[in-house]
């Protein structure tokens, strides 16, 4: 009797994640949907102008979607080679003692708060990029991509490493027995065998980078226009929400539009996470 009661109590605690997730979904719909009475879904998603405080206002989030996409793809250009390379090195080449040091180091990289990365980007990397490429401003899509890439690196590296470590030893031994060298074994046997895990790592890295807020808010420069070059300031969906929610009067069109952006963002990250989940489980 008592055990049964306990069991139900525990079950309700376990279900809380679902409850919160449902709460988030309902909240986003409830506060986000009203904007679609003002603008059509199509105009919201593909409108080229985001002027929420003009009269009449423009609620087109295409520049923000493209801003997020550019910065995130740029981040993957940094995070994927470095992350997968690091994973290969840590699991295949590093001495066990070195591995014991490198793995916590990668974890530390993941634990640095995003606002600290953003700060570092503003005071160090931004000015460096500006001087190096002789630009009018240092806070650009390019700068944000580098920082964001370093932030996504641990995600990519740790999941790719799990996948690589899970490749059975017999496969490697068979490859050596056929006369293959270590490098050939890594590239032609281990990596193909771990490929679905590595792809999942890349997708999760994308999900992590596209949802990142403070770094892009501080480093990407913040211009809500469709980007034409990577050396231009851009503005992402996340940064827009963070920067404007404080000023948007509760219940206004602007407020609902920001929730509308969050809705789009939520479904993008949800889609990528479920996809990665599916790939990992096979």
């Amino acid at each position, binding site marked *: 009797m008592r055990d049964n009661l306990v069991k139900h109590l525990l079950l309700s605690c376990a279900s809380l994640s679902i409850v*919160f997730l449902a709460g988030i979904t309902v909240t*986003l719909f409830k506060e986000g949907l009203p904007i679609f009475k003002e603008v059509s879904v199509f105009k919201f998603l593909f409108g080229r102008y985001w002027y929420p405080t003009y009269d009449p206002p423009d609620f087109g989030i295409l520049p923000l979607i493209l801003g997020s996409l550019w910065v995130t793809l740029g981040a993957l250009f940094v995070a994927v080679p*470095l992350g997968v390379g690091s994973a290969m090195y840590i699991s295949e080449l590093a001495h066990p003692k070195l591995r014991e040091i490198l793995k916590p180091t990668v974890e530390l990289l993941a*634990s640095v708060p*995003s606002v600290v990365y953003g700060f570092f980007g503003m005071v160090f990397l931004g000015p460096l990029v500006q001087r190096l490429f002789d630009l009018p401003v240092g806070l650009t899509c390019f700068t944000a991509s580098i920082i964001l890439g370093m932030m996504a*690196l641990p995600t990519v590296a740790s999941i790719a490493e799990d996948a690589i470590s899970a490749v059975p030893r017999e496969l490697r031994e068979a490859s050596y027995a056929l006369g293959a060298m270590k490098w050939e074994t890594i590239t032609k046997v281990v990596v193909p065998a771990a490929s679905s895990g590595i792809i999942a790592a890349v997708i999760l890295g994308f999900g992590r980078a596209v949802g990142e*807020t*403070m770094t892009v808010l501080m480093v990407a420069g913040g211009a809500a226009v469709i980007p034409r070059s990577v050396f231009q300031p851009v503005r992402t969906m996340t940064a827009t929400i963070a920067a404007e929610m404080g000023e948007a009067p509760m219940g206004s069109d602007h407020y609902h539009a920001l929730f509308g952006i969050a809705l789009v963002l939520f479904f993008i990250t949800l889609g*990528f996470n479920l996809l990665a989940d599916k790939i990992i489980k096979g």
Partner: protein
Amino acid sequence: MRRFKQFVGFVVLKTSVVVGVLFLFSLIVVIALNGARVLSPGFLLEFPREGMTEGGIFPAIVGTFLLSLGAVGFALPLGVLGAIYLREYAGGGRLVRIIRTGINTLSGVPSVVFGLFGLAVFVKLFGFGVSVLSGSLTLGVLILPVIIRATEEAIEGVPREFREASYALGATKWQTVKGVVLPAALPGILTGAILGVGRAAGETAPILFTAATFYTRHLPGSPFDEVMALPYHIYALMTEGTEPEHQVPIAYGTALVLLLLVLAVNFIAIVIRYRARRARKW
């Protein structure tokens, strides 16, 4: 030729690790060198003065302390109980699969979306206002997956024989969980709680509209007061105000304090995990 290829390949892999480590290193060095210049007992223990251009960051330290402790206080019991259900009570059924997908999805939700959720639900719907309470609850939801995962991992590490011995002595399931499994899993659970503190302390976007304020004259007197917080303080110093030549050094100091805090917390977690692994007699 094959040897040369292998040599080049290894160098590339090594480089990718070096780049990551170097980035982390330079971030720490830049912030440590510049931050150390303003760090002093007064900086840690005084209130800000002259519109944030002088004085210390004491209220922000207190605020971050309260917020992350509140978050863990909320998420730890719920997360631990939930994890016990998933590991000890649930079979492999459909419900568990759904709960697990929920936990995974929750951990992939962008932090700014948590902020909106907190704003709509805790600040508005529950009427807690912009306050320590709203911020703690929002951060608590965010770190729930961290706690659940750490606890699950810890419980998983407890050998089956422990439970069987307990049953053999006539203990019920709940007695076994309470008296045998949880004590054995305690170091792992503690690690999870500590990681949760670190994560909550560094997050900015979730407290942006739920708890944080740029400046208060007083420490919070009740859970319904708004607070200053270290990560938000960095952001505000870099983006608001008109005297960057005075604000940036303070931001460096604040970033150093936050970085030290988060790294120390993570380091403690790593040490606890390592010690528990070595002290384990099974």
